[in-house]
């Protein structure tokens, strides 16, 4: 979990950066990772991760693969994977994700659903890989 959080807070491959002094209005779609430090009103969809900086103000429903929130978000969050909510964050809206961490001091007002469907899939994959290794050993014997 800690490693995931570190990765989210230091996105190496960023496609989009919205700076502090910029306001965006409308439907924002992306295929890569996004860092938001400015103001965004509308809707955000990405196949990558979103990092919301501590000075950001977002008024939007958000769909993403992973997300780290340090600023203010008004809107529903639908995150396929891991969601990290920092101590300075404020979220007003419903949250759906498969893993979550909430730091002391965070303000959340909404329903939180942590759906472990993705985790189960991860388990299935690792079990399958183990079986393959065992098969290989048996074959060698």
């Amino acid at each position, binding site marked *: 979990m800690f490693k995931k959080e570190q990765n989210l807070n230091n*996105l190496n491959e960023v496609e989009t950066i919205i700076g*502090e*002094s910029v306001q965006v209005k*409308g*439907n924002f779609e992306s295929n890569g990772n996004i860092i938001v430090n400015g103001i965004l009103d*509308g809707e955000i969809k990405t196949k990558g991760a979103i990092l919301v900086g501590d000075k950001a103000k977002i008024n939007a429903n958000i769909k993403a693969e992973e997300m780290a929130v340090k600023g203010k978000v008004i809107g529903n969050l639908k995150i396929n994977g891991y969601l990290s909510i920092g101590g300075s964050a404020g979220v007003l809206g419903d949250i759906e994700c498969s893993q979550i961490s909430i730091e002391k001091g965070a303000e959340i007002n909404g329903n939180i659903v942590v759906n472990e469907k993705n985790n189960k899939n991860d388990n299935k994959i690792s079990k399958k890989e183990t079986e393959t290794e065992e098969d290989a050993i048996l074959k060698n014997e």
Partner: protein
Amino acid sequence: MNIFVYDAYLDKYKKTIRIIEESLNKLNLQGKILYLKNIKNLKEAITNEIGSGAKTIISVGNDKTAISIINILANISENIPMAIIPIGSNNYIAESIGVPNEKEACYILSSRRIEKIKLIEANDLLFINNFFIKNKGTIANIDNSYQLSPQKDGSIFVYNLPPKKILFESIKINPQDNILNLCIETKPNSKTHLPIKSIEIINEKEKGILDNFTEIKTPIRIKASEKSISLIVGKERAF
């Protein structure tokens, strides 16, 4: 045959020109010289040379010289490669394509490493490098889906070629990926980067500038053009 187009301001660089010509002779890259100061219609002159078998057009000058040749080559049916020998200042295109100075330019011309670069449309004009406008009062409508407005003074650039100054460590600008790069810098130190396909720029007071030379009034619609140019590039190019 090589056709060298010498800009009119090169009279101030006689010594540099002599050194370049010696290098070109050593590399067996001689050709015909067109002096811009003696030519009334460059398009006609270049088209005639291509008709007579010119294989490469070489811009000897700065960005302004290169842009005038790019606009001609982009609008003819033949695919004739172009090279740049940068002289003096305002040579940002040469820098981006890995041509650092006039001496290296001769070796790069000799190596003949050709890359096709898409040009960008701004209303009915073409540009290759970048578009610039001041932030103040600018509204940008992007990809027909969202609007962006800077809240503080600064500058807006749309890059096709990567600038020498690295804006973001993690972002690579590539003029061959059909993606434009919108970069906004606001004071004191806020930066925005968005990969976009098209943009409409509106500003009632400020004009935009294409490739550091050509002024253009808003509203301006910017998108990748179907037209492209084959450039002879250096190994040290930024893409």
